[in-house]
């Protein structure tokens, strides 16, 4: 498949990135000023990229749907960021971080990309400290670390329970500095609704100004998408309400391949669903699994009494508790990777041992930690998380165990990119969660922040020069070229079509139904039969959407219902692609669990012979089946094993 050339540099794994930098083409400072870059999204990847481009001298236009770039959803990441510093002297190094990430991803990520990620991880920590990010420190004044799932070392740097916030504010301040200098033009409250191609190259975007509804044309020499993940296809997720797939989906429809859409991360420690009115799910940081122990009652009758409110967690004796992660996975215990922990919770609840009124919850218990460390230490480590839990659930986790259940959290799939982070569309780059590249079938905790900042600060500023070096003679685009006018017209037509359905159902009511289909059939456990059903139900729902949708108000004003409608229209197409991808992947790996493919002990059963590839879907038009391309994965530097956390 010549179309999918990952452009992996020559040489041994440890030298690929330096070899690349040795040979990459450069753009001199005078020419950088003549080159425009569009960056969509201002989370960790987008803000760090936009700031770094501007520091280098490029002219940057940055876009976000929020009212300020500081609000991108990276801000919600709690636990931490990984790096191979080995400050604790516990045997960590770049190779081990690389190895853990590849293994954690169940051998479905690209070796060279992941190794580079581990290599630049240390630079990220240095960079953030220099910016004034207040990481947690020891009394000696040096940086503190903690452990996260899927690792036996402590390599996670953190800033209380607000690591994402602090890292984002660091990147945001770097971006703000460049906005202040006039090197970045910032556009807030904008939805990117389409990508503009000129002679097959990405040259601009069409946006809608969310305040006044104006359709705008923005041109540049190259376009960088850093627009996050698509977890909101499930309606309920830990994503922000506005997180959406629209920019990525627009690129897909313009020819960019969509890779591994079925690889979705279901996070084991979220506050359980408690009612139909619920609008989102709240994550409780994975760091809680450092000291919290997960359990359910050993006896079915106890579980039943708890569900009926006739018994309390504390009344269950130690010997009647099933610490099922410690039982099943003694080597990693409560710190197994997220996919493993989530499935184990589902297994216990499906077998009737779940707690809470719905039976869809397990306990996360700190009583042992409080006894061992004292309440003060536990409070210092997790105080803000405990407070957050108490505000939502109205229950004190110092006294009664927390209740948790898995929820949609992160999407490993995304647009296909090569080693340079360029999609198969010339001049279109994709960073962070929006691309597919580093986490395989399952992402380890504290690695999303690492990837976002690695892509933005250290990878793309290098690789984009390789493309822009032969663009220095291309004059600036104005946005009035026929391709821009035509694409803007298509966007306008789509919005008109949405407004003119004039049916009876609100966007949310249809989105909720899509969410149910996705959770039931494309969620934690999938079957061929269920996935086929999902495809047909989504197709039916999509027809209903386009014939019975109701959007009040008009287009030329602030209209949140219209915003949501466009996003849900895209989710209704994406959901089907996810189900198709899950259907062709006849194996279980990472977050993708096909019930037909499991061991006798209920562990995921991978099929390396037939499925050691990255799927890459090509859009073929409305009502046409997409075409599957495959990039086969070759592991030259590590031995592929059965993932074992026992």
């Amino acid at each position, binding site marked *: 498949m010549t179309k999918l050339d990952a452009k992996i540099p020559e040489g041994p794994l440890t030298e690929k990135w330096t070899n690349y930098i040795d040979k990459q083409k450069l753009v001199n400072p005078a020419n950088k000023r003549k080159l425009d870059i569009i960056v969509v999204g201002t989370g960790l990847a987008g803000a760090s990229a936009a700031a770094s481009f501007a520091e280098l001298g490029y002219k940057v236009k940055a876009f976000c749907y929020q009212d300020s770039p500081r609000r991108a959803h990276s801000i919600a990441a709690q636990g931490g960021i990984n790096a191979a510093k080995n400050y604790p002297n516990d045997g960590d190094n770049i190779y081990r971080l690389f190895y853990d990430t590849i293994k954690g991803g169940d051998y479905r990520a690209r070796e060279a990309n992941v190794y580079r990620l581990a290599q630049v991880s240390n630079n990220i920590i240095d960079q953030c400290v220099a910016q004034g990010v207040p990481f947690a420190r020891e009394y000696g004044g040096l940086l503190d670390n903690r452990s996260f799932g899927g690792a036996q070392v402590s390599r996670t740097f953190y800033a209380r329970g607000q690591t994402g916030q602090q890292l984002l504010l660091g990147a945001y301040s770097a971006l703000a500095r460049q906005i202040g200098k006039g090197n970045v033009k910032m556009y807030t409250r904008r939805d990117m609704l389409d990508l503009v191609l000129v002679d097959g190259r990405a040259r601009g975007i069409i946006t809608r100004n969310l305040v006044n509804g104006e359709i705008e044309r923005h041109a540049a020499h190259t376009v960088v998408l850093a627009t996050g993940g698509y977890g909101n296809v499930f309606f309920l997720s830990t994503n922000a309400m506005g997180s959406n797939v629209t920019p990525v989906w627009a690129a897909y429809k313009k020819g960019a391949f969509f890779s591994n859409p079925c690889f979705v991360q279901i996070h084991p420690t979220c506050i359980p669903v408690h009612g139909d009115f619920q609008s989102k799910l709240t994550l409780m940081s994975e760091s809680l699994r450092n000291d919290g122990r997960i359990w359910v009652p050993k006896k079915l009758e106890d579980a039943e009494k708890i569900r009926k409110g006739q018994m309390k967690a504390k009344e269950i004796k130690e010997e009647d508790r099933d610490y099922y992660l410690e039982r099943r996975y003694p080597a990693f215990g409560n710190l197994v990777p997220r996919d493993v922990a989530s499935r184990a919770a589902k297994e216990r609840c499906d077998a009737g041992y779940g707690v809470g009124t719905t039976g869809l919850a397990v306990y996360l218990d700190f009583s042992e930690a409080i006894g061992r460390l004292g309440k003060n230490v536990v409070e210092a480590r997790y105080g803000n998380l405990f407070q*957050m839990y108490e505000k939502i659930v109205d229950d004190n986790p110092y006294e009664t165990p927390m209740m948790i259940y898995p929820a949609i959290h992160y999407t490993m799939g995304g647009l296909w990119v090569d080693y340079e982070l360029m999609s198969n569309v010339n001049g279109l780059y994709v960073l962070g969660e929006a691309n597919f590249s580093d986490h395989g079938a399952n992402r380890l905790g504290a690695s999303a922040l690492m990837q976002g900042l690695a892509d933005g600060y250290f990878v793309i500023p290098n690789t984009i020069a390789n493309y822009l070096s032969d663009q220095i003679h291309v004059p600036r685009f104005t946005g009035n070229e026929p391709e821009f006018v035509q694409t803007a017209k298509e966007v306008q037509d789509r919005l008109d079509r949405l407004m003119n359905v004039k049916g009876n159902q609100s966007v949310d009511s249809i989105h909720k139904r899509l969410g149910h289909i996705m959770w039931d059939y494309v969620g934690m456990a999938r079957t061929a039969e269920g996935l086929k059903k999902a495809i047909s139900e989504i197709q039916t729902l999509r027809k209903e959407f386009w014939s019975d949708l109701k959007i009040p108000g008009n287009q030329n004003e*602030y209209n949140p219902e219209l915003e949501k409608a466009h996003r849900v229209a895209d989710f209704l197409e994406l959901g089907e692609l996810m189900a198709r991808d899950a259907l062709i992947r006849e194996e279980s790996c990472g977050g993708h669990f096909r019930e037909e493919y499991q061991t006798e002990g209920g562990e995921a059963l991978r099929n390396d012979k037939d499925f050691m590839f990255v799927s890459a879907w090509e859009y073929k038009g409305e009502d046409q089946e997409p075409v599957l391309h495959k990039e086969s994965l070759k592991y030259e530097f590590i031995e592929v094993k059965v993932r074992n956390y026992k």
Partner: protein
Amino acid sequence: MDLTLKIWRQANSQAKGKMVEYKVSNVSPDSSFFEMLDVLNQNLIEKGEDPVAFDHDCREGICGTCSLYINGRAHGPDSGITTCQLHMRKFKDGDTIYIEPWRAKPFPIIKDLIVNRGAFDEIIQAGGFVSVNTGGVPDANAIPIPKPDADLAMDAAACIGCGACVATCKNASAMLFVAAKVSQFAHLPQGKVEASIRVQRMVAKMDELGFGNCSNTYACEAECPKEISVSHIAKMNREFLFAKVAAQANEK
């Protein structure tokens, strides 16, 4: 729960606004304040009316997007939380709830309950950063920082930029917001290098944008969802004074 809501409705920045009364019924006490508003909006959409526009995104108290003045208090009756973390169990069946936008001249209304807080971004652009470019920085552990200083910096850095401090201040002062950023960097060696120029630029921008003066009522601290202490304002005032004295000394 059955509730009466009195909500500020304003079609756009130019239009004249007014309070409008709505009823919502069967609200679960376990739902969040926004989930209650979702129910109201769903009803309005079904009736073909324009739903109430309000800012919200993460719905877990960290992005700083949400606002709302509820019964005369920024982020509502509970303390230490944003509106999205407010739950209906804090209200009683039959209550009347007044819901208004942030009211401050530098935060013009866009629609209904949504205001433009771009002024905060402008203040950060004026100096709320450490001037380091990507790359070429020292090893992270080459800059030891005493833990108490790092903790104080983190206390200040917890600001989410929601604007509650401005909305609740009778002078619409942005002192707590600006002080939080100034103080974060003033407690860290990385920030010391340009401390003087930073505080001067940020304060000048704050004044230019029309934020009022601080008259030490501490309302901002009381309503801050992240409970940021006014002691950071004292720290900023000291930084500002030092900067001025240093500037005058240089002139001489």
